[in-house]
């Protein structure tokens, strides 16, 4: 009986709480995305968060009014666990290219920051004044950065070349080893792909700064 009451009364509140919010800052006119806490707790994220690779969240927002796209924008959040210093290095890249660097000492600090963070995704001047609008929000998670992909590709390619040189001997002209094809296959197969994707459609709210 209690479980049923919980399910009927409290679950909508939980869902409400898990859903992100998109708010236009009335002072700056910037559309901010908040309450993405559910993303950080997803197993695909927690599995990779301490890998030492740069975990990237791409937040894309498109504002629709009367079923037509009125504006769109995106922000990116890169989180990397630095084992040597034992800190989380966080970069928030706003829609306008402005980067905010953060250094968080623990996972709790990270979770705390993440739950209260507001990510600026687009400039929404005039959007609030024009009446109700909905925002289609897409957040994807990629477990490594493009520069890490390039580094891995270089590493694979160089490994192949070293193997070829070693086989030809130090005084022999460097030939194209048979592993070059395999290395090429491996290197070109390394691409960044999102391993987690979430979508929401929420109302565009108007709020104060912060």
């Amino acid at each position, binding site marked *: 009986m209690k479980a049923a009451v919980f399910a009927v009364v409290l679950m909508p509140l939980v869902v409400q709480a898990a859903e992100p919010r998109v708010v236009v800052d009335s002072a700056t006119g910037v559309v901010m995305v908040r309450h993405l806490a559910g993303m950080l707790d997803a197993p695909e994220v927690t599995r990779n968060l301490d*890998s*030492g*690779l740069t975990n990237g969240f791409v937040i894309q927002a498109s504002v629709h009014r009367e079923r037509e796209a009125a504006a769109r924008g995106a922000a990116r959040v890169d989180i990397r666990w630095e*084992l*040597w210093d034992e800190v989380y290095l966080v970069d928030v890249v706003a829609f306008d290219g402005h980067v905010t660097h953060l250094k968080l000492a623990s996972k709790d600090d990270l979770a705390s920051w993440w739950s209260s963070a507001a990510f600026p995704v687009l400039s929404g001047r005039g959007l609030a004044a024009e009446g109700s609008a909905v925002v289609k929000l897409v957040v994807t998670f990629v*477990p*490594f950065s493009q520069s*890490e*992909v390039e*580094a*891995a590709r270089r*590493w*694979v390619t160089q490994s192949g070349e070293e193997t070829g040189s070693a086989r030809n001997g130090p005084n022999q002209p460097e030939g194209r080893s048979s592993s070059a*094809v*395999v290395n090429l*296959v*491996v290197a*070109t*197969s*390394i*691409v960044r*792909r999102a*391993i987690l994707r979430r979508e929401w459609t929420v109302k565009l709210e108007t709020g104060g700064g912060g």
Partner: protein
Amino acid sequence: MSITRVLAPVIVMVLAATILVVVVERELSAAWFRLGVQPQVMSLLEKSMADQKRLDTASPGNDGLYRRRYEEIHRVLNNLRVLEHSRSRIVSRYQAVLLAVLGLVVVAGSTTQVLGQAREHRRLSSIQDALQALSGGGVDLEVPVRGRDGLGRVARMVESTSRLVGRQRKRLEAMRTLEQWQDTTRRISHQLSGPLNAARLELSRLHELLGGTSDPGDALACASNIDTQLDRLGRWTRSFARLGRLPEPRLVADDVAGIVQHFEEVFSSAWPGLHLAMDLARPARAMVDRDLLEHLLTNLADNAARAMGGAGGTLGLAVSTEGQWVRVDVADSGPGLPADVVDRLFQPYVSRKERSDGMGLGLAIAHKIALDHGGDLRLFETSEQGTTFSLVLPVLPCNSEVE
């Protein structure tokens, strides 16, 4: 070339290669890749990084050595982790590359197989054609099959056999010609010597008669005998000349049945006791020289009449069409041909008549006329009930104009 003969081995090859690639790739390539990104390896690298950090804490004066080592290990670990994330994509792409290579190999192999079989088929057909030509009488053949393999050797053997057959045939023809000339000279000398001896004897007797006091009537009889013998010689030489002066046929499209009908109308009473029976199919058109064709029929009828002798009989003339040929059967009700003349019936000076008042040229001339028309004259059958000769001529299409 049967398509199944080509497809069956290709399908088997493709299946076998695909199974081989899938099994080998799954069991070997994927296993090697798993080995490269072993969790244990990554765990060891992580521990090594932690160790570097501890070492740096323990001996901070090492001027960043452990930090550099740490960074180095970190980079390798990062690369391995990126690889680990792309594992499924790498494996699937690797499989795709392998399958593409396999496809190329199979296509190349199949193409080679098909082209090889087609080439062998062509070579076999060439040899088959050459053997057919050889069996049809062809000599000095060139077989367009090169190479030192089995087919090439067979082709050379066919060529050398055809050359050998050609040489043998020429030799046989030369021998046959010589034999014919020998036979001809023997017959000519026989034909000439008979009347000449008789004439010489009559002349001797005439000398005796003119030198004595004989009856002038005897001298006149001798002179008459000499004249008879010389007349016989004259007839013989005219007949001999006819064969040599046989004209080239002037071929025009004509109805053979009509010619035979006309022949019956004109010659029905030419041979006493000989009844002509017609069986004509119309139309039966061919390119013929009407005069020469009537000459041919006359010779056959004359021959039949002589064979039946004074007893008389029936000479059947039947015209029909058989495929690409017009056929004229000339059948008599005579006693049939002696076995010893059947094989050389159409040679000059071969006669079936015991009393040789003909020259033995009738059938030879008839045969020559048939051959000059692009046809042939054959002995169809002979028995005690009669003999049938068949003349065949190339038929003309039905819509050709009859001149």
